[in-house]
């Protein structure tokens, strides 16, 4: 894959401005909610704010929030501790020395485990190659979280515990750069605190997240008639819409009695220029990651797969079975086609079972009975057989299956999340932004975590369960961040992380970083102006500070 990565210099500004102007003329996203002025300075005229917002859209930064739903343990990844380093090795969650590799300032765990807790499936945790590949862009910033409730912790991971009027980091990025984008803030996962709407209700409507329940089917909601067999021409449909919008609704008794309804106003607005703009871009095709198949009879319905379908399917070949891979594939397309400035994805709490893969590896369906009967291997788990490695890519509860068995779940899930990040970064590096820059040069990938996990284990145990813990570390991967740095550190005897100086990044054993501080650091790294709130300058988190 050709790597077009280059540090930020100057964007393809002219061409992008022209596109933004085109989008604005079509009312693409300005029309979604109109531009408020909160957080954009104190403009006497809204038009000034609109112009500023559009100008920022021409030079955007992108944010990918990749969640470790359920609660990841940084001690099982970049801050892993070797048994030989700890005075309390027998009761601390630390690893045999041979399992831990040092990669720059980070650690990486490569470990083979016989089962996934009670699930008879071998697990191979492999982190070192991924950490080596991205260590120059990787930054770990330690922090102390404020809740061990999943939904609350998830929400605070993206709001910094209401650091900036309760705006999520995604909303802040959409506010800063999203005015010229059709769908600035897209949530490809759903139902977690990472997908919550922030508590600042005064933002322009386009800043709030658009939910995608199923990345494979969602493109069908981007055109009102394409793919509906027997429907009249789109031109006639648009004329019918015009008659409905301009005459039938405004003159109906219902429309006049409830004319003051903000809900109706929103609906009327969305079915106007935003709808037209989405349909005009043929997104039903561009974002269709599935190929022609019996499950997706696209051609029979006048549809087709994305021109980039083969590219994303090659990167995420399990997209049809694994929702996280489908999310990642669509995330790339949303960024590539300049539709979004922030995307949120992550594993869900539902188990993903690759039954077909398991059947392939075992040569067919599971055989019941004991080994040796009928001359075939016994692979019935209820009779002591095992699932093939990889047949359960996501355990139930995701990272939180660590309550049952910590080490193998963390190994499996860290490899899963880092693997998706690696492939997504690879695609973004291959996509040119302009003037030799890649999309990745403008992107931050934030591995957002619910909270940390408890640090202890029963004496000498290799299999053990863990609970939730406030002490944590945030993983950020970005050319914009102060990469190749561990900000703060970890006490090898307790597994508790400590903080750092916000300006210099010097470790400070007497300090723990707060959620607002880390939020501020990420926002500042992304060029978000934190107007109206006093947050520290987290210069240590920025590469070009």
């Amino acid at each position: 894959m050709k790597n077009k990565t280059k540090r930020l210099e100057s964007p393809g500004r002219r061409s992008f401005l022209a596109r933004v102007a085109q989008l604005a003329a079509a009312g693409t996203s300005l029309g979604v909610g109109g531009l408020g002025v909160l957080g954009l300075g104190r403009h006497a005229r809204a038009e000034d704010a609109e112009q500023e917002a559009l100008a920022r859209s021409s030079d955007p930064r992108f944010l990918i929030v990749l969640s470790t739903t359920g609660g990841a343990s940084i001690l099982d990844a970049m801050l892993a501790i070797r048994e030989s380093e700890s005075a309390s090795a027998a009761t601390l969650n630390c690893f045999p020395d041979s399992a831990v590799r040092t990669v720059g300032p980070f650690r990486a765990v490569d470990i083979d485990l016989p089962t996934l807790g009670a699930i008879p499936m071998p697990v191979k945790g492999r982190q070192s190659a991924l950490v080596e590949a991205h260590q120059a862009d990787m930054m770990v910033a330690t922090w102390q979280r404020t809740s061990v409730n999943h939904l609350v912790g998830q929400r605070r991971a993206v709001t910094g515990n209401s650091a900036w009027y309760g705006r999520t980091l995604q909303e802040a990025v959409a506010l800063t750069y999203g005015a010229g984008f059709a769908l600035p803030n897209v949530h490809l996962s759903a139902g977690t605190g990472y997908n919550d709407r922030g508590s600042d209700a005064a933002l322009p409507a386009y800043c709030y997240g658009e939910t995608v329940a199923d990345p494979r089917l969602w493109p069908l909601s981007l055109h009102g008639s394409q793919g509906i067999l027997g429907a009249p021409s789109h031109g006639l449909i648009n004329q019918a819409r015009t008659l409905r919008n301009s005459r039938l609704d405004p003159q109906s008794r219902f429309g006049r009695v409830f004319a003051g309804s903000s809900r109706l106003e929103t609906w009327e607005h969305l079915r106007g220029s935003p709808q037209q703009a989405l349909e005009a871009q043929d997104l039903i095709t561009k974002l269709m990651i599935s190929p022609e198949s019996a499950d997706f009879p696209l051609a029979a319905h006048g549809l087709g797969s994305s021109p980039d379908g083969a590219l994303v399917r090659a990167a995420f070949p399990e997209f049809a079975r694994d929702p996280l891979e489908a999310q990642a594939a669509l995330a790339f397309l949303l960024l590539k086609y300049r539709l979004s400035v922030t995307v949120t994805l992550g594993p869900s709490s539902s188990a993903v079972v690759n039954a077909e893969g398991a059947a392939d590896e075992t040569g067919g369906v599971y055989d019941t009975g004991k080994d040796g009967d009928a001359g075939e291997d016994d692979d019935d788990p209820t009779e002591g057989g095992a699932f093939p490695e990889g047949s359960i890519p996501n355990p139930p509860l995701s990272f939180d299956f660590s309550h049952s068995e910590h080490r193998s779940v963390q190994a499996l899930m860290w490899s899963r999340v880092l693997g998706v990040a690696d492939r997504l970064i690879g695609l973004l590096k291959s996509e040119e932004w302009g003037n030799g820059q890649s999309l990745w040069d403008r992107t931050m990938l934030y591995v957002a975590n619910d909270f940390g996990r408890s640090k202890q284990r029963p004496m000498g145990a290799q299999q053990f369960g863990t609970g939730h813990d406030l002490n944590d570390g945030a993983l950020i991967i970005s050319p914009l961040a102060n990469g190749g740095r561990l900000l703060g550190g970890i006490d090898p005897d307790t597994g508790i992380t400590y903080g750092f100086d916000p300006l210099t990044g010097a470790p400070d054993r007497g300090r723990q970083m707060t959620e607002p501080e880390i939020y501020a650091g990420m926002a500042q790294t992304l060029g978000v102006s934190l107007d109206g709130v006093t947050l520290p300058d987290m210069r240590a988190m920025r590469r070009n500070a």
Partner: protein
Amino acid sequence: MHPERTVGILIVNFSFLAAASACTGEPKNGAPSDPVPTVPIERVTASRQARVKYKSGARYANDLAGALDLPRDAVCRELGRYDCVDEVHRIVLGGVEPYTLGVREPLPSIAVTAPIAQDRVALAACTERIERDLGASAPVFLTTVDVDAPTPGELAATARRFYDRILGREATPDEVSALAQFHSTVTDEPGESGAIATRDWAILSCFMVATTLESIFY
């Protein structure tokens, strides 16, 4: 009390108030006045607390199935396989899916793609209904119309049926006029004449009524 019934009672009350009110219900936002209504618009009093609820996809599809006399699973299936409301557009259309997705409450605000999804559901259902009408011995909407050369009266009668079945009320003269006149808009398009034009007109008339605010909100 059933929400839709509540609206009905409110409207009756507003009609009563309208008799003593000088307020007029003008089209808002400077909506185009062309074509000119054939009759004066009835006066109504606008609600001071205009609270309406979005009819979720599940309720909408059930209502549409009843109005169009379609089996529920024939209302809309994306790619001929996936139910539009139960599967594809479930969350966008205000539904929940707690078991797999963890979405326990409807989205806090209307999704940008919701009007498009709503259009797809209505358009698919109306297309299916009119196709069935054209081949049925007992059609639902195209009961008395000469599909090859419909008269204005036949178009008007059909328009009234759309309002009657989908919104459960009589169409106003202006609504009837608007839909009937739309037939000539259809026939102005290249390739649109005779039975084809009548078919497309009927689909789009059904679509327009089924996607009015009155049909989607209550």
